[in-house]
């Protein structure tokens, strides 16, 4: 390591990636500024502070050693399961579903952290599993339990989007751990068979969301309104957009949730396809970096954790974009770093902090 005026710990940080996410968030601040009709309040200013705070937290996390992360995997997972049960038992009712545990100081959403918890827990499980048993049932059923319990708890909140992300995150780790591929084929077939059953068990509003996703024009003034208005915003933005502060869908309030879940539509209306491709490309670079961390990692735990966390970030972005472009039902997944709100940003920055820690661990060891 060369010794310069920059302290070694700082110099070792992945500055390229950090600049990238700062850029994404910075662009997000511009969009939030516009969404507030050219004001830093109420969103952009607060969002900037949260980002700086959480970025500091991520850099602090990057100093952790892999053993320490391994050590908190089980306590984190089981702690979150207990909290999810707690939410179910005494959680405050918010937005038609019980997601928040109000503990005076901050409103904590345990299901959000479970997206990380499930990855760590499964990575730890396969780390502990003797190598030779990976193709045995003993490699499958405990993992299925680890996914199934939080999935069910989040599903009954009900929060379909988060539950699916937990399940997807867990299954990606199982896939990467080396579970036989045919199992996934069987799994997908089983899920397809269960869809009608699931539809029947869903809440009315969830079922309605899916119906409306399939045909938004069936209820243009009601629940299909979000998707229709979002597509209008994106489509009317065209190649280069209507210009900064010149979006009509967002400024005249036709686009609902234009600063949270549908922030991408607000952005696309004013910046057009150019801005949208830019954001998609920037995220793909972040994910490229994350997958690079996974492939460089020396340990099984490191590899699985890094790939799992990266995929979690990917799911955030992919599900959100598919939703605002009318390719997926409205499931309430924000666009991390751009949508206003701390939860998703915190989750993503924790993921990135842990990824940096794993990357550093490799360097330290090497």
């Amino acid at each position, binding site marked *: 390591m060369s010794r310069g005026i920059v302290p070694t710990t700082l110099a070792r940080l992945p500055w390229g990636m950090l600049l990238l996410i700062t850029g994404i968030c910075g662009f997000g601040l511009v969009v939030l500024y516009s969404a507030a009709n050219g004001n830093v309040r109420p969103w952009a200013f607060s969002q900037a502070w949260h980002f700086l705070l959480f970025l500091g937290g991520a850099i602090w996390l990057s100093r952790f050693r892999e053993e320490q992360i391994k050590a908190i995997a089980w306590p984190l997972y089981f702690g979150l399961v207990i909290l999810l049960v707690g939410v179910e038992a005494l959680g405050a009712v918010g937005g038609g579903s019980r997601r928040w545990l109000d503990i005076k100081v901050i409103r904590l959403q345990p299901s959000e952290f479970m997206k990380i918890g499930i990855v760590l827990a499964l990575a730890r499980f396969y780390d502990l599993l003797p190598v030779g048993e990976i193709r045995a049932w003993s490699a499958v059923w405990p993992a299925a339990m680890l996914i199934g319990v939080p999935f069910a708890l989040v599903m009954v909140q009900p929060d379909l989007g988060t539950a699916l992300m937990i399940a997807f995150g867990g299954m990606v780790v199982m896939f990467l751990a080396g579970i036989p591929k045919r199992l996934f084929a069987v799994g997908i077939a089983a899920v397809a068979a269960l869809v009608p059953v699931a539809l029947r068990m869903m809440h009315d509003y969830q079922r309605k969301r899916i119906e409306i996703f399939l045909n938004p024009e069936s209820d243009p003034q009601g629940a299909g309104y979000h998707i229709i208005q979002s597509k209008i915003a994106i489509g009317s933005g065209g190649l280069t957009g209507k210009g900064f502060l010149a979006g009509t869908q967002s400024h005249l309030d036709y686009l609902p949730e234009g600063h949270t879940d549908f922030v991408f539509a607000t952005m696309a209306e004013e910046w057009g*396809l150019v801005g949208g491709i830019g954001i998609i490309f920037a995220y793909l670079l972040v994910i490229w970096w994350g997958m690079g961390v996974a492939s460089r990692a020396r340990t099984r735990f490191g590899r699985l954790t890094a790939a799992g966390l990266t995929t979690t970030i990917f799911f955030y972005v992919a599900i959100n974009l598919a939703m605002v472009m009318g390719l997926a039902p409205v499931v309430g997944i924000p666009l991390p770093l751009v949508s206003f709100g701390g939860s998703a940003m915190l989750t993503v920055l924790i993921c990135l902090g842990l990824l940096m820690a794993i990357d550093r661990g490799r360097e330290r060891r090497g």
Partner: protein
Amino acid sequence: MNLLGRSRIITEQALAYSFTRRAMVLGAGQFGIGALLAGRMAWLAIAQKDKYDKLAESNRVQSQLIPPRRGWIVDRNGLPIAINRTNFRVDLIPDRLQDPDQVIDELRAILNLDRDDVQRIKDALDRSPGYQPVPVAEDVPYEKFAAISVRQLDLPGVAPSSGYARAYPAGAAVGHLVGYVGPAAIEDYQRTHDPLLITPGFKIGKEGIEKVMEPWLRGRPGAKRTEVTAHGKLVADLTTRPEEMGHTLKLTIDAPLQEYAARRLGTNSGSAVVIDTVHGNILAMVSMPAYDPASFADGISKAEYAMLSADDHTPLQNKVVQALYPPGSTVKPMVALALLQAGFDPQERVNCSGVLRVGNGLFHCWRHSGHGPIDMHRAIQQSCDVYFWTMGRRLGIDRLAPMARAMGLAQHYPLPLTGQRSGLVPDSAWKLARYKHPWTQADTVNASIGQGYFLIKPLELAVMASRIASGKALEPRLIANRRYGPQGGGLGLTDEQLALVHAAMRDVINSGGAGTAGSARLQVPGVEMAGKTGSAQVRRITMADRAAGRTNTMLQPWKYRDHGHFIGFAPALEPRYAIAVSLEHGAHGAAAAQVARDIMTFLYAPDRAQTTLAALEQGWGGDIRTRMAAQAERWNADHDSSPTPQQEAPEADSNGEVPD
């Protein structure tokens, strides 16, 4: 237990290798989904940009339509028949009403609405789909309009606005000619979704020319465009596009003549049509009594509509094209032309003894004493039935019917009128098809004096008059067009044949008392009118009636009296104008002939005609407007009483015999 069913040695290296491979699959999947999303976005933003641009624009911009002013309808000299005048109106928007009863109460106090109006508004509110405005009042005086406008905030759902109302200076005189306008039906809107149709104050043609010529008259709506938020809050006013007035429609009608004819029909239930025999232009087309078309424009009141419906003079029917009567003796000149065309000698005499036996039946000439030996000229002049019965039998129905059709009977004319019916010219093939019975001699006898199965509408009589007068196949026209010249097509009749019939028709009127309509002689120096009367039995004269001497139906109740027709033209020897007048239960053609006389006089000496009219109107109780107002008053005073018809006194023969 092994999931693959066979054991395989798995090493740390193998797992690491598997991870790398699977991570690449995962990474490729992520990249693929990223590309898919980028592609989807490009699809929305590039390929479908136009569609979404329009949707964004229709979100942002709320257009409030400005109804176009309707095109004027003018007469052949540009005199106004239907015009627009500025008015103020008040509507209710049902969707925005919070407390309908309270709002209606307040409006009633300000606008002095009566019980009838309030009921109509409440009925309309119940039926309205919410987005469609319900008219409260039109033609609101400016002070009241202003009073409501300043209180608009306290009265949610009330929409005062200024606009244009259709006005018809001649009122009922042009009622059946132009039809009327009214708010579009809800079904029209639901079919077309044209927002103009539910714009307050917008009217479409509902009847007659106003309806048929709607596309020409409508114009293009203007738009007041405003930028609004999703919550309906106004952000900015955008450009306003002015409305474009509809086209002016020029009719062939002569407005003063039209109005005179309407007034001259007086209290009769009847119709009059004047046709220019050079161009085929319809100069007047009147059906009376009529409604005032302006009454329909803002939704006619129940009481007024009930009154019009109950009237036995059928003011809601355009008799010119919707009423059918037997033509009676008015067909005799046409039958004479058919005889001439078939080669019969006009000098040939038929001995009229006053009665003709056909099979087992006795047919009585209107003059029981008979006309003696009589030729064609005198047969027309004196309307001898026996001559036409005899000659008609020799001619045969299948040579008579083609001439009747050539003269314009039983035709549908391509005129901008609604509800046009066609008369009936019977022949042997028709009877066999319709009744499965062969044609009989008695049928021919009836048909040759325009009775039996024969049916005409008054417009057909007028066309027949114009064709006899001109000898040409004139097509009646109602819409003036500079490109229309004189009409030419001949009817295959020689000048001599026409001259003979013209002379006979002249002598119907201008032969000192020898003709049947001497009272129709024009008091205009140098102008003679030629014509022919006709009457059609409403009730058959039975043997008992005949025995009791009840052959003059004038002495019977109004509804049993004969219909009277007159066809004519002037000047008699060089025809310029043709006329047809029909009076329902007018007893005989002479009364109709007198109406025709005065209308024709108006064309040559309007002052003299006005003097005649002034005296008549005094006897009838005022002009059309005054009489209609009085009628409405009587109706309102007593819902059961229908107005009693007053008739012109006919000029009957001293012996009670009436020529037809």
